[in-house]
């Protein structure tokens, strides 16, 4: 079976993904080849006894651009093998979308234009003549709608015809008179010389030369013909520069393309009705209003978090209970003590910890997917960028940071909404400063032990705020010292509001959930076995869990690292508690319970532990301990997700050094001040 390889190129928000969905119907086989920041999707399906392979490039406004998406798209289009470029346009924004089309035409590849969302254009009173666009550009154009399936069959047939055709259609685009004159001169020269290169026409070669195309220059530079060509080219370039009064090639191309795009739009699009305001603009009058925009957004966020953590806690309780029962059952049915402990305390507990977060992640992700696919996220970035930019962050950083107050795992995953590498890394590094829900028991315990109940609430609040503020300051410091350099410009389209299909949301959410389960699950499982081993072996003769923990490898490690924590006033018990907290923050309180000899089943509001802490731990040490646990490395699950999202374990090492360093310094200051 012959294979036709199509590469999908288009600006952002033109509905490329939904077009793929419409073309493939149900015979869809999506493989997601995710890079760190940008992804390109490949899809294969059958059509008229041909295998069709689609590569979906990230949305790009221009292939000459500097962003990582644009670079990926450019590299692929220039260097990879494919049969047809399918250029997807948003019919309601023809003029701007054509700017990319004109750039793509300069690649001289087989191409088909899909005028997507034609149904929306009709609704807006736009009458677009696809045949006319075809006549002007010389490129087959089909009006389609992925929503109503209009034109999808015709599009597939057209792609087939173009791919099977041995001759590539040449572009009919004509530039301004001054440029055409120069093209004519160069073309004439090449014709007379009978010069040929690949399948390019002499006109295309002339345009390449006038466009300063590096690759073609290298090719022709070594040929004898270049001797005579060079003076002619210099003169032609001079003519163009003088006419346009600039030497910047980008400027000239932009002006030319802009004029052509406007011209094509004027000739092919007719606006029937003079409709006053589109729905999007009406909605935006409210949602991005400077006074009520932010309150509305905060309300929506509050709703989402209520859903995530309130609603999510219901299945979480069941999952927790289920794994607890399973663990008990295993313990009682396997006689061998080591094996049963490995299975129940190590493996089942570890897997349980991973599955436990799944409801949170799914609910939160449905919310984020909705915010993104409807187009609201861009508005949020606009509303909040002013504040976050001051700290070297981006408007979109808000979402992951607030999620961090719930749990760092989904928060790290939520940073994918940030497209700029630096913004993303800084956000990833400071998420830990937003105290997650699992740290709450530690705070409650210490606030309860050292402050009276009237003040404990205020102290809790102060801890949270202090963490968040410290995070913002750290973001600024990271921006100034580590992630230096110019900010990425903030020029961002605010796409039209659109309702996503359930299928699209399902695909987005299930992909995220699966990748979390797969990648994090394997590492967390291995890690929890390791931690189980370190806290269980070597076996002591005593039945007392406190002595057992003290003698275990973990306990030994804790004792060995006491000198490091001595300046903060921590004894070996507090040190070991902190270290078990690396597995999960909930464990810190349980460990303290074991070490202070109260037994394993201790909770933060247990008064016995409170009294004991009050008696044995000095106030300054306690506060330093709270500060340290506020800042230091998040739990193992989160750390693994962090490594995956940043794209390397070296970043996890940086995070470890960074958080431990800051935590040590801050608690040292706290300790000394309160001493």
């Amino acid at each position, binding site marked *: 079976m012959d294979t036709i390889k199509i590469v999908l190129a288009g600006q952002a928000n033109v509905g490329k993904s939904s077009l793929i969905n419409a073309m493939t119907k149900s015979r869809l086989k999506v493989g997601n080849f995710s890079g760190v920041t940008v992804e390109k999707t490949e899809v294969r399906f059958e059509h008229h006894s041909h295998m069709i392979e689609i590569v979906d490039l990230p949305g790009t406004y221009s292939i000459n651009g500097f962003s990582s998406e644009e670079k990926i798209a450019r590299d692929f289009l220039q260097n990879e093998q494919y049969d047809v470029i399918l250029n997807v346009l948003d019919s309601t924004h023809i003029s701007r979308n054509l700017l990319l089309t004109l750039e793509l035409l300069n690649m001289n590849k087989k191409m088909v234009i899909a005028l997507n969302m034609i149904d929306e254009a009709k609704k807006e009173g736009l009458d677009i003549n696809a045949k006319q666009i075809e006549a002007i550009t010389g490129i087959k154009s089909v009006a389609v709608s992925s929503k109503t399936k209009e034109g999808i069959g015709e599009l597939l047939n057209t792609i087939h015809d173009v791919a099977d055709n041995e001759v590539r259609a040449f572009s009919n685009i004509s530039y301004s008179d001054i440029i055409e004159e120069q093209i004519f001169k160069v073309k004439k020269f090449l014709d007379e010389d009978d010069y040929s290169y690949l399948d390019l026409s002499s006109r295309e070669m002339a345009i390449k030369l006038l466009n300063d195309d590096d690759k073609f220059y290298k090719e022709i530079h070594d040929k004898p013909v270049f001797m005579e060509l060079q003076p002619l080219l210099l003169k032609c370039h001079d003519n163009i520069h003088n006419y346009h009064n600039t030497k910047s090639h980008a400027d000239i191309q932009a002006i030319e393309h802009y004029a052509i795009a406007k011209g094509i739009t004027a000739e092919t699009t007719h606006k029937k009705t003079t409709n006053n305001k589109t729905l999007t603009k009406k909605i935006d009058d409210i949602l991005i209003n*400077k006074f009520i925009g932010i309150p509305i957004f905060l309300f929506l966020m509050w709703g989402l978090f209520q859903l995530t953590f309130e609603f999510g806690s219901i299945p979480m309780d069941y999952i927790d209970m289920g794994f607890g029962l399973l663990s008990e059952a295993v313990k009682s049915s396997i006689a061998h003590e080591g094996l049963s402990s490995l299975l129940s305390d190590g493996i089942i507990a570890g897997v349980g910890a991973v599955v436990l977060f799944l409801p949170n992640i799914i609910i939160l992700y449905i919310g984020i997917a909705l915010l993104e696919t409807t187009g609201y996220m861009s508005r949020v*970035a606009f509303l909040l960028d002013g504040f976050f930019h001051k700290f070297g962050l981006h408007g979109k950083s808000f979402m992951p940071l607030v999620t961090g107050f719930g749990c760092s795992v989904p928060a790290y995953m939520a940073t994918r909404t940030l497209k700029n590498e630096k913004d993303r890394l800084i956000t990833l590094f400071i998420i830990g400063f937003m105290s997650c829900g699992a740290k709450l028991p530690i705070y409650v315990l210490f606030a309860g032990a050292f402050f009276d109940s009237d003040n404990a609430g205020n102290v809790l609040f102060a801890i949270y705020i202090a963490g968040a503020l410290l995070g913002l300051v750290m973001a600024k410091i990271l921006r100034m010292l580590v992630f230096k350099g110019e900010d990425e*410009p903030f020029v961002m389209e605010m796409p039209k509001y659109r309702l996503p299909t359930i299928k699209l949301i399902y695909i987005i959410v299930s992909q995220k959930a699966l990748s979390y389960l797969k990648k994090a699950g394997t590492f967390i499982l291995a890690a929890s076995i390791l931690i189980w081993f370190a806290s269980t072996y070597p076996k002591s003769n005593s039945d007392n869990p406190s002595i057992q923990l003290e003698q275990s490898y973990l306990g030994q490690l804790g004792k060995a690292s006491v000198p490091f924590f001595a300046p903060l006033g921590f004894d070996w018990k507090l040190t070991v508690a902190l270290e078990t907290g690396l597995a999960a923050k909930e464990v810190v309180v349980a460990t303290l319970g074991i070490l202070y000899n109260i037994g394993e089943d201790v909770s933060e509001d247990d008064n016995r532990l409170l009294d004991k802490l009050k008696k044995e731990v000095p106030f300054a040490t306690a506060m330093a301990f709270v500060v340290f646990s506020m800042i230091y490395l998040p739990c193992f699950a989160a750390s693994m997700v962090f490594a995956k999202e940043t794209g390397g374990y070296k970043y996890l090492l940086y995070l470890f050094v960074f958080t431990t360093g800051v935590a040590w310094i801050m608690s040292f200051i706290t300790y000394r001040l309160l001493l």
Partner: protein
Amino acid sequence: MTILALLIIITILNMNIKIKRNGLKLSNLKEKKEAIIKEIKCNDELKQRFYSFGIIKGANIFVKEVSLRNNTMVIDIENTEIAIRVEEAEQIEVDKI
């Protein structure tokens, strides 16, 4: 007398030149005002981005919303809404309509 008149003329001319040099910037434009882009002065990277959005010399621009602290603005160009930071808007010179 003539010298004084000359001086005055020169000063006025000078002021004129100054005003022309520091033309009106997009960032100075008030909400709900319309303008035409006169010139874009910035590095190539930003310029390329502007161009791909249709932000180019001669294009019509409408300021839809300016954020409370004057940090970001939403402009309407070619029927598309674009969010832009004031730092970037400062590099676009416009003529009021």
